[in-house]
């Protein structure tokens, strides 16, 4: 099967059985792979309302047809399961080298079922796979675990995806970490892995992936490299990666500061990507085959944190452990990121939990006694480090926060629920949605809970009204503070994000830099697979994935009422008064109307219509929703 590893590996941890079968080409044509094929599998095999931590949940690793190819950054693997954090679709992905190695071992998907009696790790060596004892590894962090496995197996070309103590201890927002720092962090996929007693997956592959037309593929990649090297953002992305956003978002007044109480951080210059570059950057690092080495290896020379070396970070953890929690100490922020990586925790959720606690303390909702005597003043380094430890170990006050901000706020009550910055139970990212309306909408409707990576609609930063007219017929789409047309923008970028995640490429290049259009994506996929997809076919695959995910969360009870943002973003105007985003709020309802209409979903309920599902070849999903009286029988309003 051209462009694919060709096999699916199915591992039952309870009886230790390991089976493989051929990748189903009919499914690959409908969902490609990665996130697409994963959600299809989860929809088919995991019943509604399955508890994320029960043995009935399945943990699915998947890679797409562009993974392990010449595509710059065709590196990503998806991990999908029912989320123990949100109770809906759990799905997260990461780059590095683990994804390509799975493909070279011959696998497009690895399905983990049931639960092992004691801790094990899965060792996949091409066609051979075995479960190995991991009792000695339990209790060790991501770095120690990875090193111990490489040592035990005696080959540093092996790629390891592991969990840390956070997941073992049942922190609900623990991730799966490959290459030490490549985090599939969101929605608690590491927590699911720990509940199955699976400490790590180690993989080595020496196969060749067949390609339908290598000459055409190579030629297209040469062209793509030129587009990338000549891209206006190339230099700054290589220098700073996504940490460039500290300066950029601070300038527009949209950086999450002290838990979104304001949009500008007075210490932004001290904690910026530029500051990291000047003080700690040793060299640029990259994911598999990427010509935009946007990651960085850092050596942090600070006597308070001996031997602090790490790769990265991205903007999200950096802003999370600086501006969001009111910390202007860069080395401390990097130490927090390193701790999150080693314990194996989602930095967005972790920083939100700390920031939420600090705001509750500021407002007198939370007393010092309730927080184990910690002084929760903004930016208090000692408190921050202690809290990370406590959360990872689920000790004392940390035990409360370890369930995520939604559950923590429900427990504390006293109005703290309104301050919990989450959507559908998933913590909001590090940009203020009030300053960027398409991102606000994207967060509200994202299928895994509040998240920017389900859409990444960068276009609203473009300030190019003519392009706005060309694309969406609406000039306002090109401006971040405007509302008109954002439903169309989010729909478009959701489909792009779905294709990026289903093919296994990076959204920095595919969504934010827009290096390929639908037709070029089709051409590249055709060169890899030998299929004859049109650009519209590819877009429709993206639309199909988005719709199946919507059906999935509809089955869990999600409707329009859940597509909301925290009150602060809707009601409180964004400060400071001097910033270019001053006074902004999010008027969500009109954007939602426009979005559901563009999607062909029911505007009142936000549910996918039978007509739309059938149009996309998802009749089965329409049937299953109807059985639960969820399906919406109304006419498709788009037709």
């Amino acid at each position, binding site marked *: 099967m051209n462009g694919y590893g060709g096999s699916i590996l199915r591992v039952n941890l309870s009886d230790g059985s390991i089976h493989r079968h051929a990748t189903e080409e009919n499914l690959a044509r409908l969902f490609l792979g990665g996130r697409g094929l994963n959600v299809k599998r989860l929809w088919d095999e995991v019943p509604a309302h399955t508890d994320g931590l029960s043995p009935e949940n399945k943990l699915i690793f998947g890679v797409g047809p562009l993974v*392990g*190819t*010449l595509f*710059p950054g065709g590196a990503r693997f998806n991990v999908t399961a029912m989320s123990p954090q949100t109770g809906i679709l759990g799905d997260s992905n990461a780059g590095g*080298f683990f994804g*390509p190695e799975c*493909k*070279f071992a011959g696998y497009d998907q690895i399905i983990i079922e049931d639960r092992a009696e004691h801790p094990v790790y899965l060792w996949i060596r091409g066609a051979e796979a075995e479960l190995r004892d991991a009792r000695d590894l339990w209790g060790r962090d991501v*770095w120690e675990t*990875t*090193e111990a496995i490489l040592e035990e197996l005696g080959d*540093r070309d092996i790629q390891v995806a592991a969990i840390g103590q956070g997941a073992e201890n049942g922190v609900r927002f623990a991730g799966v970490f490959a*290459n*030490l720092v490549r985090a599939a962090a969101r929605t608690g996929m590491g927590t699911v892995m720990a509940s199955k007693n699976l400490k790590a997956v180690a993989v080595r*592959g*020496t*196969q*060749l*992936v*067949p*390609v339908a037309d*290598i000459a055409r*593929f*190579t030629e297209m990649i040469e062209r793509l*490299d030129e587009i990338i*090297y000549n891209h206006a953002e190339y230099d700054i992305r290589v220098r700073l990666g996504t940490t460039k956003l500290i300066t950029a978002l601070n300038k527009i007044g949209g950086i999450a500061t002290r838990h979104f109480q304001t949009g500008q951080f007075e210490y932004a210059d001290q904690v910026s990507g530029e500051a990291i570059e000047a003080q700690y950057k*040793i*060299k*640029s*690092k*990259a*994911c*598999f*085959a*990427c*010509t*935009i*080495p946007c*990651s960085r*290896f850092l*050596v942090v020379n600070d006597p308070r944190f001996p031997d602090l*070396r790490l*790769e990265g970070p991205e903007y999200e953890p950096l802003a999370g452990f600086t501006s969001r929690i009111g910390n202007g100490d860069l080395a401390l922020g990097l130490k927090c990121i390193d701790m999150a990586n080693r314990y194996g925790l989602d930095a967005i959720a972790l920083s939100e939990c700390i920031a939420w606690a600090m705001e509750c303390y500021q407002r007198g909702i939370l007393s010092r006694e309730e927080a184990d005597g910690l002084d929760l003043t903004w930016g208090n380094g000692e408190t921050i480090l202690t809290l990370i430890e406590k959360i990872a170990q689920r000790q004392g006050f940390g035990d409360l926060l370890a369930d995520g901000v939604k559950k923590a706020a429900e427990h504390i009550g006293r109005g703290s629920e309104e301050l919990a910055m989450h959507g559908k139970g998933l913590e909001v990212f590090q940009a203020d949605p009030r300053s960027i309306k398409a991102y606000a909408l994207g967060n509200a409707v994202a299928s895994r809970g509040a998240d920017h990576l389900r859409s990444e609609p960068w276009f609203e930063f473009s300030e190019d009204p003519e392009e706005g007219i060309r694309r969406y017929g609406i000039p306002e789409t090109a401006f971040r503070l405007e509302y008109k047309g954002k439903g169309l923008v989010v729909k478009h970028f959701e489909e792009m994000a779905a294709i990026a995640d289903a093919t296994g490429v990076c959204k920095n290049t595919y969504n934010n830099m827009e290096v390929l259009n639908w037709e070029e994506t089709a051409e590249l996929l055709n060169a890899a697979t030998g299929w004859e997809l049109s650009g519209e076919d590819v877009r429709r695959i993206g639309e199909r994935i988005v719709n199946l995910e919507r059906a999935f969360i509809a089955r869990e009870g999600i409707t329009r009422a859940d597509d909301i943002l925290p009150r602060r973003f809707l009601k409180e105007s964004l400060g400071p008064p001097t910033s270019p985003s001053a006074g902004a709020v999010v008027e969500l309802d009109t954007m939602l109307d426009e979005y559901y209409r563009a999607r062909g979903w029911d505007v009142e309920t936000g549910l996918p219509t039978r007509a739309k599902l059938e149009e996309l070849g998802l009749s089965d999903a329409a049937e299953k929703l109807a059985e639960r009286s969820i399906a919406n029988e109304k006419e498709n309003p788009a037709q």
Partner: protein
Amino acid sequence: MKRILTRKEVCSGCRACEVACVARHDGRFGTAMARIKVTKIEPVGLDVPNVCRLCQRPACVAACPTEALYRDEIMSVVRVKAMDCIGCSACVDECPFGMVMLHPETDLPLVCDLCDGDPVCVKRCATGAIIYTDKGVIAREKRHYCATGGKSDYGGAGA
């Protein structure tokens, strides 16, 4: 004479060179059959592109019991006579740099052929960590660096 030289100080560790090498020589995607190999030690951020040194007196050729390997004096590369190769891996064992490997499907030695003068690994390298240049360039740069204490594009002294 031109050679493939490497600068580990600027290698991002992406392994685009490996997959480009395999795509050219095998027409498929993979890394295990690459004639270039990046050694990565993640915890310390070490990424080292290893290349065939195109030795003047190649140990791999000397080791071959069937004379399946020979040095092409015009192109200055080692070549393989597939029909004569018995797959014994003596060449693998004798290369002082560990840069001869056997193809996982054919068991034939993988040796660098410089892509007939236009190496794809060099073309694909985004950071300048793999360069195709005159032998001695990096040594010259290092001498310059040591002499002046200044900055060199080719990395620090002793690098």
